[in-house]
């Protein structure tokens, strides 16, 4: 009886776990289905892409790593007939010439000065770029005022500090690439802002000057400016008067970059609504206060991608100085790849692969940084 009343009952005290969704809507398989094979067109594109990866990647990996030669002291290590196997990239050559690629012909005993320059630059860049860094205002002073003077004294030398004088004709390699692009970047932004403001100025002479300058520089290819600087300029100067060979393209690159930067900044200025200007004026701010505190901070924020894009372009354009005989990284590779002691079938490709990696790492770094800054600055105003 008891047993009869005690019918089996079950009240579930806990909630049942939801059954997992079918495999086709969740997990990697579903992701693949949704993103790669969602329709006939996408399926075909995916297959084509996979096929291209299949064709392109194995040879590249094989060339760069599997068949690569990592150690060796001369060309014998990198030639298939003496090495006894297929030879890909000859990293031994890069390793052997690395000092030349970094410092050019900078005297070996003085190379610590170049290293110190790289360190000072890295400190300045980190200080400027790290948004939470302490005393960032001082960072700007350091980067735009203290660092250039320090770098100049350090690299060229000074009698006062008993640093021997190193002529720029001995500079080369990554040192020159970094110097040219740093000078371009350091000068381009301030000059570009001034030119952009000048172009929108109500004062006719300033406006006309800015317009002529910007349009003239943008209307000429950089390569022409460099040729003018290095081939024609010496003819116009009186004999015996020479402008340093490295300084000439430096000035050319800085002028060039600032004209492009001016147009980028002007784009930002135009995007600021009129109300911002009127509001600033109604507060009694003068022209400079209005621009520095109200307009420019907003305008520059809008054009961060454009600014970084210009910097990346500038960084890669520095290779053009190679054509006028300045020994930047590309030129040092070109000069050393003809060395008979390292003549081998893959030396050219190895040299250029090294250059490609160098430029990629820097440009990719710049682009990632700009994306991070954009996200942070735009955090409050997602649309």
């Amino acid at each position, binding site marked *: 009886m008891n047993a009869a009343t005690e019918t089996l009952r079950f009240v579930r005290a806990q909630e049942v776990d939801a059954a997992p969704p079918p495999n086709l809507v969740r997990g990697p398989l579903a992701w693949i289905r949704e993103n790669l094979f969602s329709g006939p067109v996408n399926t075909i594109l995916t297959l084509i892409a996979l096929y291209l990866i299949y064709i392109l990647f194995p040879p590249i990996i094989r060339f760069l790593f599997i068949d690569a030669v990592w150690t060796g002291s001369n*060309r014998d290590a990198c*030639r*298939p*007939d003496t090495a006894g196997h297929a030879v890909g990239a000859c990293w031994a050559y890069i390793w*052997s*010439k690395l*000092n*030349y690629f970094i*410092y*050019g*012909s*900078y005297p*070996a005993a003085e190379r610590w000065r170049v290293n110190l320059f790289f360190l000072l630059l890295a400190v300045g860049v980190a200080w400027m770029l790290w948004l939470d860094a302490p005393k960032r205002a001082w960072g700007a002073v350091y980067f735009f005022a203290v660092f250039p003077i320090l770098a100049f004294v350090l690299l060229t030398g000074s009698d006062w500090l008993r640093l021997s004088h190193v*002529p720029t*004709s*001995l500079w*080369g390699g990554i040192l020159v690439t970094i110097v040219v692009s740093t000078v371009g970047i350091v000068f381009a932004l301030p000059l570009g802002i001034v030119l952009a403001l000048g172009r929108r100025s109500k004062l006719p002479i300033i406006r006309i000057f800015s317009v002529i300058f910007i349009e003239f520089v943008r209307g000429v290819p950089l390569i*022409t400016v460099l*040729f003018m600087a*290095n*081939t*024609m300029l*010496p*003819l116009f*100067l009186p*004999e*015996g008067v*020479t402008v340093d*060979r490295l300084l000439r393209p430096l000035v050319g690159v800085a002028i060039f970059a600032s004209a492009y930067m001016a147009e980028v900044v002007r784009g930002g200025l135009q995007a600021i609504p009129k109300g911002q200007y009127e509001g600033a004026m109604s507060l009694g701010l003068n022209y400079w206060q209005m621009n520095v505190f109200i307009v420019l901070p907003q305008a520059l924020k809008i054009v961060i991608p454009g600014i970084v894009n210009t910097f990346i372009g500038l960084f890669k354009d520095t290779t053009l100085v190679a*054509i*006028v*005989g300045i*020994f930047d990284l590309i*030129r*040092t590779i*070109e*000069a*050393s*790849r*003809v*060395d*008979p*002691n390292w*003549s*081998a*079938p893959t*030396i*050219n490709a190895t040299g250029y692969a090294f250059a490609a990696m160098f430029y990629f790492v820097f440009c990719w770094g710049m682009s990632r940084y700009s994306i991070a800054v954009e996200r942070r600055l735009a955090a409050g105003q997602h649309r």
Partner: protein
Amino acid sequence: MKRMIATIAIGLAASLSATAASAQATLNNVKQKGFLTCGSNTGLAGFGVPDAQGNWTGLDVDLCRAIAAAIFNDPTKVRFIPLSAKDRFTALQSGEVDVLVRNTTWTMSRDTQLGLDFTGVNYYDGQGFMVRKKLGVSSAKELNGASVCTQQGTTTELNLADYFRANNMKYEVVAFVGADETFDAYNAGRCDAFTTDASGLYATRLKAASPEEHIVLPEIISKEPLGPSVRHGDNQWGDIVRWTHYAMLNAEELGVTKANVDQMTKNDNPEIKRLLGSEGKFGEAIGLTNDWALRIVKHVGNYAEIFEKNVGSGSQLKIQRGQNALWTKGGLQYAPPVR
């Protein structure tokens, strides 16, 4: 565009040469600066190549060092300004470099119209052919019907046409824009023969997967005398550059080497005595010290030594002396006597 700029630049250079000619003071300038400025190549195997530490080496580079040694008794007191083919003459004209030693072919138009003077020939080059050994060809005369890889728009292409027409042979030209592409095409079997300057043939052959499979044919079909040049008008400076090369040739001829030069000063041979300055005042006559040639040989070496070290048996290039042998050995290198 580039060509236009070059033309304008050369025209300007020629017109400016009149003013440059008045300067007789290059030697004083160099002494005052404390170093020689030498226009050099931006990278050419055997003639100007940076070593692992970035120091320039090569046949042209050694001539610059020899001039510095003659003036300063120190071969390191020279600054190299690597020049592209377009910049080189303007750099010399404008006084940016004191001497141009950059494998420049001595031609009449350059010598007479650009306001510069060639002072000699430190390397006799000329266009040659390279073929695969298995082609079984031992002379360029046997290349009838061959396809030849060459660089587009260069004198190389014109010389090639002249040579084949003069010898009444048929050929097919396969031309490319760049030097590397040209060689790659030859290497890939696109043509039977590859042609460029002989020194370049030896350098590019090293880039082949197995260099021994290729041979350089003995015929030289063009004249490419490469030599140093100076500004027109400063004759004393021209003399110094000219006789620096001659001193190295005379040293070779007389058996004076880097190693034995100090003992040779005690030698009784009057020619050696005059060369090394223990007799006569030949150095002072060109504004230097009388031991000028001694300094050159001691610091840099004689011509044979720099040839073998940079392009000959002591280097990877292994170029034969050929036309660059002394006149006593059937070559063209001939130096007037020091007397």
